[in-house]
């Protein structure tokens, strides 16, 4: 079974296979296995489950401005959120942002990996020079691009002015979106590249050679053989990139636009932080957390089903 790097997903999506693998019966001890899982489980309970439960609890409460009194309000916070145009707008912004980040990162990485798989001379040097952005923190990536695109002193801003583009993302929402998409996708290219390259290298050469002997050119071979065989990798990367764009790009946003201008780059995660920490709206922010959790869980479930049916191994 070719489980892909998405071993995580195979675990969940292929229970029958796992049951077969897990026939081994090895050690027995009344207490040792519990002691071994205890640290992980303890941390999970204290820092994951307990806060998640509390988020659920806070989400049904209303706090006064001084945080002294709280009142149980049921689902009123949720109702308020879905009546709030800003919140619905943040949904749209998040959708646009994550699709753009995933599409850009995956497309560029696939192009680079396909060419890197082809060259022989200098392959290692190319790989080395392409993977380092993986190590750059999202917030630092944001700062690097912020500097290039700074409205008054940026190098690219200057070049754009030369060709007649007026660049000021502080005022123009689309430009701010472009800036955060660039910074977020740039950082993710090397990750995607590595996984595509590993996927390409695990494709049996004999398949490609057979197609070449039958007269299929490089383009035809790519779309009829290589690309279908890469689909598990591509799908895995799509999942990872969406999750990345949803959550890990907080640093990119906070270091560059901070959600602005006028909410044009305010993704859902940033709004949870902004409303909860800066706005001190405990109930509203917790309700947003609960909605985000629901989204993550739904995404994961849908993806398991999809992975099982559509993607060939």
């Amino acid at each position, binding site marked *: 079974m070719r489980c892909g790097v998405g*071993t995580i997903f195979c675990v969940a999506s292929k229970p029958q296979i796992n049951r077969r693998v897990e026939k081994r019966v090895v050690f027995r001890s009344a207490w040792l296995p519990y002691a071994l899982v205890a640290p992980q*489980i303890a941390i999970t309970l204290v820092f994951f489950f307990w806060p998640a439960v509390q988020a659920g609890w806070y989400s049904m409460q209303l706090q006064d401005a001084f945080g002294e009194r709280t009142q149980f309000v049921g689902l009123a916070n949720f109702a308020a959120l879905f009546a709030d145009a800003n919140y619905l707008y943040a949904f749209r912004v998040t959708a646009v942002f994550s699709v753009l980040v995933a599409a850009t990162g995956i497309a560029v990485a696939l192009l680079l990996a396909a060419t890197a798989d082809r060259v022989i001379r200098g392959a290692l040097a190319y790989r080395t020079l392409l993977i380092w952005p993986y190590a750059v*923190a*999202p917030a*630092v*990536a944001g700062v690097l691009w912020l500097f290039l695109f700074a409205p008054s002193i940026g190098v690219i801003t*200057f070049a754009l002015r030369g060709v007649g583009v007026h660049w000021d993302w502080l005022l123009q929402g689309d430009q701010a979106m472009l800036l955060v998409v660039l910074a977020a996708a740039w950082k993710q290219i090397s990750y995607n590249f*590595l996984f595509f390259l590993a996927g390409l290298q695990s494709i049996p050469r004999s398949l490609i050679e057979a197609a070449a002997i039958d007269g299929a050119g490089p383009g035809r071979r790519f779309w009829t053989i290589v690309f279908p065989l890469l689909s598990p990798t591509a799908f895995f990367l799509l999942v990872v990139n969406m999750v990345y764009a949803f959550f890990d790009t*907080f640093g990119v946003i906070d270091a560059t636009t901070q959600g602005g201008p006028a909410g044009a780059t305010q993704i859902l995660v940033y709004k949870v932080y902004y409303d909860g920490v800066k706005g001190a709206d405990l109930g509203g922010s917790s309700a947003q957390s609960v909605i985000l959790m629901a989204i993550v869980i739904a995404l994961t479930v849908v993806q398991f089903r999809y992975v099982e049916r559509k993607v060939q191994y």
Partner: protein
Amino acid sequence: MVEQRPWLTVFSHAVLIAGILVVGFPLYVTFVASTRSLEDILSVPMPLLPGDRLWENYSQVLAAGTTKGVGAPVGRMMLNSLVMALAIACGKIAISIVASFAIVFFRFPLRNFFFWMIFVTLMLPVEVRIIPTFKVVSDLGMINSYVGLTLPLIASATATFLFRQFFLSVPEELAEAARIDGAGPMRFFRDVVLPLSKTSIAALFVIQFIYGWNQYLWPLLITTDESMYTAVIGIKRMIVAGDALTEWNLVMATAMLALLPPAAVVLLMQRWFVKGLVETEK
């Protein structure tokens, strides 16, 4: 390569070189800015060749920080980042490897329950439970401490799954042989499982070190004291409103310092890293 197509090869090299230049451009500009004076940077357009202020800029941020914005020395921040990255990487690997060892090599009640509990944490990233987690940590008195910075991030579904998948591929005969020879489970763990897991551990170490070093939201909440800032937080705090007020030469020197250690880990451990990734794929 299947057949000779010289033009396609040339094209491939051209694409790769263009890719490297585009990907590397932000880093190059950052480096240039970190070797220049503030006046150079503010004179539009900024010169695109390195200047002569490398030593001054880097020694100033390492020892003293910036004059506007945050005034804490970046040397201290780098130390905080290092502690955080090492503690998270080692902690994650340690608790995940023993947990997956128990899940694969033992049969015990609630085994699947524990497994799913760890699995579900994948769906609860810090970002979605920011405020309650912050409250828990502050109730435990862990604000502005290394424990508070690291402990809540140590649970790892990913690492547990990678180890579990790897352990399932360990031939059953090895465990049988160990048992016949009278080795207990912990002896088997130490003498057979650990040595076999070296590559997985190395690969995970690289990934988790970078994860720890690059943490942003969590230290932003947990550290209010400048002496506990990590390098990534420090940079953010150095950028004050307005292009002209920020000391960009110092910010960029700090950015270089903040990205060098994780980049060095990726590049130096590259062979292990990629090998580990490819091996976990089987």
